[in-house]
């Protein structure tokens, strides 16, 4: 269960007022959010470093949070900066397809709404198709990993994903069967 914007903001403001317990609660709640943020940007091996760096930044730079503004916008602006800084210092390049996503500010609300929409849509599919789409398209597992995790063949995974996506596409176009 992920903490809501309101909850995070309440913790943040209480932390700014000097409440250490709420500050710790905030930092703990940020860990899964930041994991998800960095995982989607394919930096698998450095996620832990990035998450810790960002937590330190959130702590040391917390004076820059304006209590009247959205907390997650501030958080993801820091996370994005840390990631770009990380790429820059490692002289790595960011694939151009991902650039849009990196530059566009992350709407927390929109992202969680989208997640709920996806969950609802996946529930309409047969269980195996939904599971395979979730594994390969959302959690970012490889086909081979998904196959061995479920104890089925790789081609079975591919077919399930393909059929599932096709059914979802048809559903989104409006021709509900």
């Amino acid at each position, binding site marked *: 269960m992920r903490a809501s914007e309101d909850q995070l903001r309440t913790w943040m403001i209480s*932390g*700014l*007022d*000097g*409440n*250490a*317990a709420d*500050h*710790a609660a905030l*930092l*703990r709640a940020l*860990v899964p959010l930041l994991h998800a943020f960095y995982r989607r940007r394919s930096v698998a091996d450095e996620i*832990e470093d990035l*998450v*810790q760096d960002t*937590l*330190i*930044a959130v*702590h*040391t*730079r*917390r*004076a*820059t949070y*304006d*209590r009247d*503004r*959205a907390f997650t*916008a*501030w958080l993801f*602006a*820091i996370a*994005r*900066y840390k990631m770009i*800084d990380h790429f820059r210092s490692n002289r790595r390049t960011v694939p151009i397809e991902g650039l849009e996503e990196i530059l566009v500010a992350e709407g927390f609300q929109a992202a969680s709404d989208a997640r709920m929409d996806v969950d609802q849509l996946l529930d309409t599919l047969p269980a195996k198709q939904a599971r395979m789409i979730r594994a390969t398209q959302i959690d970012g597992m490889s086909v081979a990993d998904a196959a061995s995790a479920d104890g089925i063949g790789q081609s079975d995974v591919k077919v399930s994903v393909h059929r599932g996506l096709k059914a979802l596409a048809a559903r989104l176009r409006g021709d509900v069967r």
Partner: protein
Amino acid sequence: MNTDQLIDQLAAKTRPVRRHAVGWRLGLGTAIGAAASTLLIAMTLGIRPDLGAAMHGFTFWMKWTYTISLAIGAIWATSRLARPDGGGLRRLWLLAIPVGLLASVGVVEMIRTPQSEWLAMWLGHSWKLCPWLVLTLAMPIFIGLLWSFRRLAPTRLRAAGAAAGLAAGAFSATVYCFHCPEVSALFVLTWYSLGILLAASFGALVGPRLLRW
């Protein structure tokens, strides 16, 4: 170190943060830097001996109005760029107002002065030195702002460096008025502004390296 330990360590150092902490921190950095620059002027260049009298005149306040309004605009931009989600800088065009006002005073000056004296008025006695002194005196203020930035979170480092340099230059020009006896608006518009722009360029140059966090 694992993340849980890290969080415990960080939370153990939870100090209260006052509202408007960004403004306070920038203000403190600027004030300390400006005090150092003023001290530097007093010890090396010397305060102009007629400062008391000059403060009753028009030109002194014309110069201060110009440099102080640039300083306010620049520090506003710096405070926006000091936040990761600071927002746009569209209102920065307001800086054109003091420049335009000073330019119109310059035009009036030119109308009132015979053409043969225009060059002497424009160059004054110190045009060769003035921009460099403004740039030099901006350094303590820039260092003060670098200290401020140690707890701030700029994400556009070059822009933040330029804004901090602009602010340092404008405050430096403000304290330089304690020394500089020049009276012409055209002089100030050219040579003071050049010094301020040099400071801003310096800030833009070093920003990406020095403001990283």
